[in-house]
């Protein structure tokens, strides 16, 4: 599903150049649930941005679902993001003047899905995250966990190849975190490929594979025994 070969990325900071990613090689099969771990400054967010086509790499190859991703202009990148990727952010990033249903329907709008179908699909995904009754509520009327579940529904609505979650539990307490991870695990169970960036050990162990980044290189890449979040949720 994802294939990365010898990926380099550096940022210019005035006259200095900061080499953030120093040759990343990484592959990810269909249906995997991967945790990307590392301390701050390890390059994990940069990697996720490149995977999310929000940022370009300096050198190296990136192939997503058989499509080489390179030399993208903004329009092409937007179309690829819409087609291939779903995003879940630490701070949810819901649009505050749209209700839950409209937020979920937004990526479908940019996919040119018809109004009616959009509403149906969005409602369907809201139901799957257990928030059907909250469809007409604004984000300000939802709790943090609910917001993140709406954001996950939004990311899933476009039926992406890969779901990218950047610290999805970073702004949540541990109980809500487990609920969100439970949801992510269930989505993964249905065969969706998910990448989770986190620095929390317990969250990482709820994935099936942990990739450790340190100073811009992968220092450890291991498959693990998945801890089901269900057991923490009553």
């Amino acid at each position: 599903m994802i294939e990365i070969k010898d990926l380099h990325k550096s940022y210019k900071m005035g006259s200095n150049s900061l080499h953030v990613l120093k040759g990343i090689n990484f592959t990810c099969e269909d249906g995997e649930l991967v945790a990307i771990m590392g301390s701050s400054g390890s390059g994990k967010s940069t990697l996720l941005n490149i995977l999310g086509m929000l940022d370009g790499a300096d050198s190296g190859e990136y192939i997503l679902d058989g499509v080489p991703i390179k030399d993208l202009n903004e329009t092409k990148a937007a179309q690829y993001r819409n087609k291939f990727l779903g995003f879940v952010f630490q701070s949810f990033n819901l649009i505050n003047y749209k209700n839950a249903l409209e937020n979920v329907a937004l990526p479908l709008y940019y996919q040119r899905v018809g109004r009616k179908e959009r509403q149906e699909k969005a409602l369907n995904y809201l139901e799957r995250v257990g928030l059907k009754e909250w469809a007409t509520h604004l984000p300000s009327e939802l709790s943090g966990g609910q917001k993140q579940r709406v954001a996950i529904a939004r990311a899933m609505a476009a039926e992406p190849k890969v779901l990218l979650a950047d610290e999805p539990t970073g702004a949540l307490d541990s109980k809500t975190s487990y609920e969100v991870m439970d949801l992510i695990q269930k989505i993964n169970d249905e065969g969706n490929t998910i990448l989770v960036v986190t620095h929390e050990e317990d969250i990482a162990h709820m994935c099936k594979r942990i990739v450790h980044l340190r100073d811009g290189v992968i220092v450890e890449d291991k498959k693990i025994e998945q801890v089901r979040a269900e057991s923490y949720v009553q």
Partner: protein
Amino acid sequence: MKQLLDRDTWIEIFQSIRKNKLRTFLTMIGVFIGIYIYIGLSGAAKGLDNGFEKEFESVARNSMFVWAQTTSMPYSGFKTGRQIQLKLRDVEVLKKQNPEIMALAPRNVRGIFGADPGLITRGLKSGNYSVFGDFPDFTKIATKRIYDGGRFINDDDIEQERKVCVIGERTQKELFDEDEEPIGGYIVIDGVSFQVVGVHKFAGGGPFDNDSDIFIPFTTYRKLYNTGDDVSWFTIAAYDDADVVKVEENIKATLRRIHRVDPKDERAIGSFNLGEAFNRIFGFSRGLTFLSLIVGVATILAGVIGIGNILLISVKERTKELGVRRAMGATPSEVRNQIIIESLVLTMLAGIIGIILGAATLKMIDSLTQGGDFPYTNPTVPIPLVVGSLLLMIVLGILIGLIPAQRAVSIRPIDALREE
């Protein structure tokens, strides 16, 4: 374009406009005031223009009066201070030498310029009224509104030196009883009996106009008062496209030649150019129209710039939202178009409200000044100007929307989404 026709685009835009009511209101107020001032001012200018037009509709726009005075320079053997007398035969020469003349009416009068007014009697009633000797051509220069059943002096009256007259409203009131029919009745002018053939309505416009004057045929007049070929003054109308000032100069030059006056003698022939005075008045209202155009356009411009300004701030405020949209797959052109359409909608909305309220204000002013002496009639803004101002707003709205739209597009989604 496709985006413009999409219902969802509009839902998106109205959501974002509604989200921030205060912002929307403040944004719109600038353009609103601009178009309101523009519509109000240009409508008022038009109303004034119409008012003047109505006030002077009875007088030919390009008319003038020419009379003779005493010379101020010796010339051709004549001494200075000679009284010039205009003659009826001058008419032919004037017309031949000045093709710009549309109509020329020699006139004589008693009751103005020193001569005693005529004594008019009818039965036991009597009074003093100005008596004019006129040609039918006079109506081409200053229309006389004649009441039903009457007429003005015609060519037959002149030819046969008929003893007929046209009297003013007040003359009628003072000489006839209220229920009496004046047409066909007789009045005595300085001892001679005249039949009334018409009553004219007082129009007011040219000088010497009055509601109590009496018009009789020029030929009858000269017999009655023994004036021979003498003419008191000429009333002249030039064609509409002629330059009245120039025509006036030419006519005076012709008269100087006929009466052997020094060509440089400015005082021998007097004149009053009504056309020039009209031009000044209408120039004023044209100036007002022009001024309102400038003020209106400038204010609209200021308002539209205000919209651009606030949208720029709003784009900054919405950085995160726009970043999310981009991450969700909004292309840069979709984001750009959304901002431009927002700008356009705000501009047009403000503009249309301004036009409606401006028109309502004009209507109100119209009904307040109705029937008064103030020269103000039917203050409307010509449709092309309204359409033009709308087009201007569309163009400006799009242009000014481009700035915040470009700003919105230039924000990279990664920067917009960066966690603080």
